[in-house]
């Protein structure tokens, strides 16, 4: 009986740990208003990317509609999305494929 009641709890804990440990992506979406130079500056500021890398992500947002700008822990992804929202960028987080 002890083993039977413990099994669901362990499974729940495993699921939660898996959800936390799986990588999450920060995605920036295109919008017609934000300036390209502004978006580039934001990427440099928030992620510390070089001018070249920031510009590449900006161009990807502009031409493809979205760009995965960072992947890593969920906690950090949430923080980055918050920072990007602080610059009025359209940003979301999603589980990484």
């Amino acid at each position, binding site marked *: 009986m002890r083993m039977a009641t413990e099994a669901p709890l362990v499974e729940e804990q495993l699921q939660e740990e898996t959800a936390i440990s799986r990588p999450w992506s920060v995605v920036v979406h295109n919008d017609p*208003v934000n300036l390209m*130079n502004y978006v580039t500056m934001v990427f440099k500021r928030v992620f510390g990317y070089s001018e070249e890398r920031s510009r590449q992500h900006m161009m990807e947002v502009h031409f493809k509609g979205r760009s995965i700008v960072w992947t890593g822990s969920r906690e950090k992804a949430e923080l980055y999305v918050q920072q990007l*929202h602080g610059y009025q960028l359209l940003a*979301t*987080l999603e589980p990484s494929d």
Partner: protein
Amino acid sequence: MRFYLADSDHIEISRLNLLLAEFLRQAPFEADPGKSEAARDRLYSSPMQPQHMDPEFIEDWHELIRPDLEVLFRGASEIVARDLVGLREEQLETGEAEQPSFHVQIPTKHLDSWLSCLNQARLVISEKFGFTEEDMDGRIERTMSGKRDMALYQVHFYAIIQELMLDVMRVQEGGSSNFLEEEESEDDLDFEDIAEEDEDDLLEEDEEDFLTDTDEEDSGPLPEEKGP
């Protein structure tokens, strides 16, 4: 319009005609989404797309993060509003200008706030008028009619100021300017021509019409001043 580094700590925007000065003065108020749900939704967009929605996370976001963003955005507008107290009519030499001309000095340490405020204003105005990618990419038409055209002109003007401020920040961080000629001093970012056509001629034709409400269909005053 002139835009230049007055000294190491200030930029100056001068030779602003009445319309552009009014646009600038209105920026902190335009940044406020007010009752526009579309504008609010844009400024405070969801951190997750529908297919990945986590209701608990979204609830926490609305409770904890959104108030912080509101404070951040409002703070930027308040700094800009305080700087704009110094927006004044400038004394030009006799014969230099027939119309009133305005200028303002902005501390370079406030440029982040200005970028934020102007960006908010552009987003809010765009949502209120439903501007598309085509509107944002298009040229400013020579003849403007009505509030929508004037709002689009306002959004484009704010974009120009943002680009100039970004350029100053880039130079200050050791980068190169997108606007300065090689032989010019980096202390004199002088941006005389905003559009391909003569800005002053364009405004002489349309500013008077707009300010005196001659358009019967879309008549209305400039946006009313709202308190912070």
